[in-house]
């Protein structure tokens, strides 16, 4: 009888143990689940088309502003590829206006009968024709959107938004504001000693399309599934000589005067997302 009781007790303990194990195997039902269910995927497998207004933020000689557009296709909700381009107009910066005034005044005092090489001060005409502006920018890029969410404005209006970063190939087209009128006949490669005068050398070597990199960050504020506001900062990093003059002090205008430049632009545009209906996750 004692053996029988012992067997019964052992069986009960075994069952109790198995029950405990079953309990230990219970898991948190939220383990491995996405942070948000039924999330609107505002970007996945959709095109983003953004006409925009662009202005520079750090040009030293000439402001550049204009219109452009961006097209992006998003493979995933957080990765896309695209390209963009802008056509830009130029005006003198406040600093350039001051410098032009000083250059003109000084040149009139120094060269009452016309420019005398080797300068060193440039005339206003020489200054004006060598200073470069930017009339176009372009880039092809990969765009990553790691942050997306919702926000409340005054606890009354609610909207979706995302923050993104982009990077890729950048192109900047530098132009001179006018056709050369001053003498630019001196050859920078053959001139010697103090005869070398950058004021009468060819400055057009710094114009044209410069290839470099582009990085950018931006935000989309979505009014609807298919319409949003885009604000973006882009930096085109290319080698250039924006002043079009001698930089390294060797009195020769060569490609060695071109240095790495950050051309930072701010863009505001309206983003249209197609197809107009966003997918919803499970």
């Amino acid at each position: 009888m004692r053996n029988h009781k012992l067997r019964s007790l052992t069986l009960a303990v075994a069952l109790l143990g198995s029950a405990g194990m079953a309990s230990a195997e219970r898991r948190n039902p939220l383990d491995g689940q996405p942070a948000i269910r039924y999330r609107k995927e505002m970007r996945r497998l959709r095109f983003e088309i953004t006409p925009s207004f662009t202005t520079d933020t750090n040009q030293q000689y000439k402001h550049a502003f204009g219109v452009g557009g961006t097209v992006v296709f998003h493979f995933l909700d957080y990765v896309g590829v695209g390209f963009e381009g802008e056509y830009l107009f130029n005006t003198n910066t406040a600093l350039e206006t001051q410098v032009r005034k000083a250059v003109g005044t000084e040149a009139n005092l120094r060269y009452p009968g016309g420019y005398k090489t080797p300068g060193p001060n440039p005339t206003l005409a020489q200054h004006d024709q060598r200073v470069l502006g930017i009339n176009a920018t372009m880039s092809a890029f990969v765009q990553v959107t790691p942050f997306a969410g919702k926000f409340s404005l005054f606890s009354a209006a609610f909207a979706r938004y995302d923050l993104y970063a982009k990077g890729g190939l950048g192109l900047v087209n530098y132009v001179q504001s006018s056709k050369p009128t001053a003498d630019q006949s001196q050859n920078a490669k053959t001139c010697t000693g103090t005869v070398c005068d950058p004021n009468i050398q060819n400055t057009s070597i710094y114009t044209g399309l410069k290839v470099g990199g582009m990085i950018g960050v931006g935000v989309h504020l979505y009014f609807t599934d298919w319409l949003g506001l885009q604000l973006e900062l882009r930096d085109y990093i290319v080698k250039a000589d924006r002043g079009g003059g001698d930089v390294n002090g060797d009195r020769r205008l060569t490609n060695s005067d071109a240095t790495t430049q950050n051309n930072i632009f701010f863009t505001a545009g309206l983003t249209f997302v197609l197809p107009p209906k966003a997918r919803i996750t499970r």
Partner: protein
Amino acid sequence: MKRSDVRATFIALCVGAGLVVGPLTLHAQEPTPPGEETTSPPPADTSSPPPDVSGPPTDVSGPPTDTGTVKATEEKPADSKGELGSLQWKDILVVPRRPILKYHRVELIPTYNVSVANTLVRTHGFGGIVNYFLSETLALGIEANYLQPQLLDHYTIRGIQDRVLPSINRYYWNASLDFSYVPVYGKFALFNRYILQWEAYIEAGIGGMESQWISRNPADKNATNFLVQGHIGVGTRLFLTKWLVIHAYLKDYLFADKYEPADRALQPDPTAVPPTNTFSSRFVQNVVFGVGVGMFLPTSFDYKYTR
């Protein structure tokens, strides 16, 4: 005796079986983990009456609304089963409580900022801000920065190319009394994995600063200016915890600065500071981008509920 043994065995088996089946039953009563439902359409049927507390919990994994709230009834308002007297389930909104409270807390923010709009001199600012929150959205603050200049290449290049050196000043320090307001708050998911809270604020302030000439000729004496400045700005707080935040901001410091005159060389003694009426006065917008790490004190807070 034998009969007693059988009864003991039976009782032991019953107890054991009960202990085994009990937890399994509890397991079965747990709500299905989200995502493991086989056929759950997005709009969950939440229009039914509240479930019996002794019954299995209902699946409440329906889609959240745009506002982050969940309506008790969304799809079938006409269903009279959901009525509670004059109150209907559709009248009940479940609003998540505000995740972070700032009311009557102090925020200490060591900051670094850098000027972004000046192409001749870059100014680095090292300082701090102390904010006291009068409400969840309104804060009063004190800000101070030590400023360090960095001459940029363009200043030298202008000298080489155009034989012109523009008048520039360095800034030593600034201090302000700030008022900030939080009109926007939100949250975001990082790769749909981590949910973080953030808010955006607008700010205005008034205070003073000190600037000094950087003379074209380093041998010349420099004038020092004490100026009144105002500023406006926008910024954002990203909450890492209930007391630790990351700041990023843009501020535009507005002031009228006084510069070295262009014709200083024509003065009787060019090395001496010229008369103040010859100073060149200009309105300056010193736009800076800054970052900071904010710490809220006290580090915790309590929710208050109306009775």
